[in-house]
């Protein structure tokens, strides 16, 4: 440890600039897990502060009013089963199916993005970039308004439920982002792997499926989970379109309680809490997995 190193604790042998050891923390290349990292790092006090705020707020908000804290709280408790079971459950269902469809289509699109054929690669890049960079709400509106209310299958008329339309709307940005995750994972594999496989007479197709993708799989899991958390947080957008979910039902509940302004913070605060509580373990797992794989791959 006491060894003297030129340029650090000893005079440098040259006056050329010396590369000093980097002393920062772990450097994360372009951070694709920003959201999960933030959520996973929420301090412990946050988990006390938010519920407390929900409970205490009405008392402060209108101290003069005759509506007490406990009344607001009681109203919330009364409505919780309704807004969770008929509301939040749909956020989960929507996010689940949007993720499922978005992942399947996104993987296909991502593979198309690395195709050697321009005819396949260019449209895939175009689709990916357009859906990735469009506002989610706009995509939702387009899909909800463009999809027919009803479809006829074999003479029978089936009404498409709103939540299913929301799934189609939300799976588009997910698809585009997963496509980028897949492409990013593939190009992050060193080119030496391609060359080694090619020199062993692997075809391009075999190289991709047998050498490259198995190495990508682990790398894709953390960003994939990150996108699931982001998607779940985006599901309340559906309430703007009247899809029944947590926020829509919270609003209905507040209305049923005569729209008392004291109720806004408890109800929406509760919504916030429930989203955070749902996504927090996912974010923790994402970051834990990311650390583990980072160590494994040296």
């Amino acid at each position, binding site marked *: 440890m006491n060894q003297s190193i030129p340029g650090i604790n000893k005079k440098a042998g040259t006056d050329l600039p010396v590369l000093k050891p980097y002393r920062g923390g772990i450097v994360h290349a372009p951070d694709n897990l920003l959201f999960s990292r933030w959520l996973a790092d929420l301090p412990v006090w946050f988990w006390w502060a938010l519920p407390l705020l929900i409970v205490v707020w009405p008392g402060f908000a209108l101290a003069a009013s005759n509506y007490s804290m406990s009344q607001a709280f009681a109203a919330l408790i009364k409505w919780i089963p309704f807004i969770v079971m008929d509301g939040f459950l749909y956020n989960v269902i929507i996010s689940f199916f949007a993720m499922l469809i978005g992942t399947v289509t996104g993987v296909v699109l991502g593979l198309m993005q690395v195709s050697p054929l321009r005819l396949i690669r260019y449209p895939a890049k175009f689709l990916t970039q357009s859906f990735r960079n469009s506002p989610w709400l706009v995509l939702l509106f387009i899909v909800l308004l463009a999809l027919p209310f009803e479809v006829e299958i074999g003479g029978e008329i089936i009404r498409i439920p709103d939540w299913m339309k929301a799934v189609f709307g939300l799976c588009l940005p997910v698809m585009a982002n997963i496509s980028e995750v897949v492409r990013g994972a593939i190009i992050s594999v060193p080119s030496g*792997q391609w*060359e080694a496989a090619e*020199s062993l*007479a692997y*075809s391009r197709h075999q190289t991709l499926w047998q050498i490259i993708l198995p190495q990508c799989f682990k790398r894709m899991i953390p960003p994939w989970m990150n996108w699931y958390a982001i998607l779940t947080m985006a599901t309340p957008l559906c309430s703007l379109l009247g899809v029944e979910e947590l926020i829509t039902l919270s609003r209905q509940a507040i209305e049923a309680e005569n729209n008392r302004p004291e109720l806004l913070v408890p109800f929406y605060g509760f919504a916030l809490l429930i989203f955070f509580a749902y996504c927090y373990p996912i974010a923790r797992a994402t970051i834990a997995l990311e650390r583990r794989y980072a160590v*494994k791959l040296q």
Partner: protein
Amino acid sequence: MNATQWDPTRPIISIVDVHKSFGDLEVLKGVSIDVMKGEVICIIGPSGSGKSTLIRCINALNDIQSGSITVEGLEVHDAKLDKLALRRKVGMVFQQYNLFPHKTALENVMMAPIKVLKEPRDEVETRARALIKKVRLEGKEDSYPGELSGGQQQRVAIARSLAMNPDVMLFDEVTAALDPETVKEVLVTIKDLAEEGMTCLLVTHEMGFAREIADHIYFTDRGVIVEHGPPETFFDDAKDPRTREFLSQIL
């Protein structure tokens, strides 16, 4: 296999007046080399002189602009070439090992014969274990590349290439990324191979080694072959001033 039928009086690799550019940068400016079956050829030269580029052209990892390269009669840069057929004949080992990190040493060696040559698994496994023994890595069969030293990884890479039963082996500065202590174990492996009669083309900076095993040495500089000859004359009696300067710097 094929090599046994190959007419021993004809070069197994024939490189004739090859030109290769990357954009505006001409990297090979008319290179010709003949390699006979069983010969060991060393290519030396300063950094950037096009050694890697040349060796990568032989198994079609790089294309060329003009000239011709034939390996056992296969025209390498023919548009109709079956690249996979060529690469079955030519094994290649890289400076950076490029082992598949998600597979154990044994699996690395077994994968290509099973997946590419479609050989039966148990036959391949017997051969792979023998190869691992041959590169002196018994006991490391189930280690992942990340658990092996550089020298060990490089020997797995050699075994992996040999598992395809190539007729020719290309080595591109395979010891350049290794610690001085582990260089030797890799060189010993290559020497064994050369002594068994494998046709080898090596790019190397290990002059002592080149002198010991090469049948013929080529010196390249800025995309041309400046001088070539058997090791004795090459090292002790270089004609070209560029060769002499290079040798005086490196020896």
